């Protein structure tokens, strides 16, 4: 246990890299998810086909395989070597972005048809309709699933230790080999991962509450920050309208 305490800075360094990868992955996958998700709702068949190909390809291949491809195959195919960190974020972002795009697409499609009809009768342009009416409603619908995806993304960052990046998993494995104290070393690593996940979940719940508030819905279990720590009750996706 003393060993673990003395190695605390290394754990923090590892955790910091994990957080950086997670945040980088969130940014990239969010942009991809929004872009391909919206593309998937366009009327014309061509953009829809492009979105479907992206989603099916990157949902179908494991992030680790994509990562290996970027790191080992790409330099041989093109002579262009990506930074390992960048390749990792790219692979994770492409993978989770594909899951996210499906969420965006189905949330947009779930916006009631009368809302769209209303924007047509108000003579709104596509951009106005999407920005002012469709997205704010779809956004509240997307967030709970995004919360799960963000945790999945954070967990998926652990594979980078197989390509030699010094993240939290790499540190844990390295310290295990150095000391042989498997249990304390891994318990600390697991606890740090758990902690990061809880923080991420908390942040998404805050966003969720804000999104619902903007739509004039209040959380069913009452306000207060403590209320956010409780998982939402099953079956009550949105609160009562005011």
């Amino acid at each position, binding site marked *: 246990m003393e060993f673990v305490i003395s190695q605390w800075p290394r754990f923090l360094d590892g955790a910091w890299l994990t957080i950086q990868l997670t945040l980088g992955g969130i940014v990239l996958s969010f942009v991809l998810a929004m872009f391909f998700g919206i593309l998937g709702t366009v009327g014309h068949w061509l953009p829809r086909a492009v979105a479907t190909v992206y989603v*099916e*390809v990157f*949902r*179908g*291949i*494991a*992030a*680790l*395989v*994509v990562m*290996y*491809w970027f790191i*080992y*195959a790409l330099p*041989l*195919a093109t002579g262009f070597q990506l930074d390992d960190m960048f390749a990792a974020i790219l692979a994770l972002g492409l993978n989770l972005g594909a899951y996210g795009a499906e969420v965006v697409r189905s949330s947009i499609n779930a916006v009631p048809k009368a809302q769209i009809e209303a924007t047509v009768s108000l003579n709104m342009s596509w951009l106005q309709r999407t920005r002012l009416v469709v997205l704010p409603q779809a956004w509240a619908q997307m967030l709970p699933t995004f919360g799960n995806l963000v*945790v999945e993304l*954070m*967990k*998926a*960052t*652990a*594979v980078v*230790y*197989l390509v030699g990046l010094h993240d*939290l*998993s790499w540190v*844990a*494995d390295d310290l*295990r080999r150095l000391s042989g104290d*498997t*249990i304390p070393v*891994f318990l600390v*690593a*697991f606890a740090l*991962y*758990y902690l990061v*996940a*809880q923080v991420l979940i908390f942040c998404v719940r805050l966003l969720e509450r804000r999104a619902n508030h903007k739509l004039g819905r209040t959380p069913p279990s009452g306000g207060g920050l403590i209320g956010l720590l409780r998982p939402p009750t*099953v079956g009550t996706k949105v609160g009562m309208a005011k």
Partner: protein
Amino acid sequence: MSGFLDFEYTGQIMPDLLGGLQITVQATVIGYAIALTLGLLIAVVRRVPVFGSLLHFLMEFIRTTPLVIQLVFVFAMAPANFSPFTIGVVVLGIHYAAYTAEVYRSGIEGVAKGQWEASRALSLPTSRTWGAVVLPQAIRKVIPALGNYLIAMFKDTPLLFAIGVVELLAVAQQVGSRDFRYVDTFTVVGLLFLVVSIPSAILIRRLEKRYVAV
């Protein structure tokens, strides 16, 4: 580099890669069987007061920590006479049981209260209430959701590579480093993944239509 894929070469390495794919599929199927049975058990036992909350916390913990490091941890702790494949499959199964348990739970909670009351009124024993009334209705509703985890598991099997299971990605890595031809090997691995996961995704979408509509 002439052309992107060298078909003669990929033809040569195909038998090795398919051997790896076979291990990948085996690990997925056995792991999935563990996840389905263990998850169901957990979903039922979770209703026991104190023990259930402990179990719930443990499952939440398993679900929010990465599978790779769970694999490495168990592999380091396990006695040497277990093969990496066995350990990998068991850890994979337990990890996904944490997910399937939630799926089963939502199914069980979706069973109408009247069904429980009717079983009570007929004074059915607990085992019959679960086995003949609640579970058949609960499981039917969650079949598509369970199917999604089969695909998710399939895509997580490359992680078994971390503890030395020679599955598809490990074979590709070996072959690729032997011949220094990573482009062909890893591209074929990617394609093999698609060959398995896209048809499975289509199959599950069909299941969804069939069961959710009920």
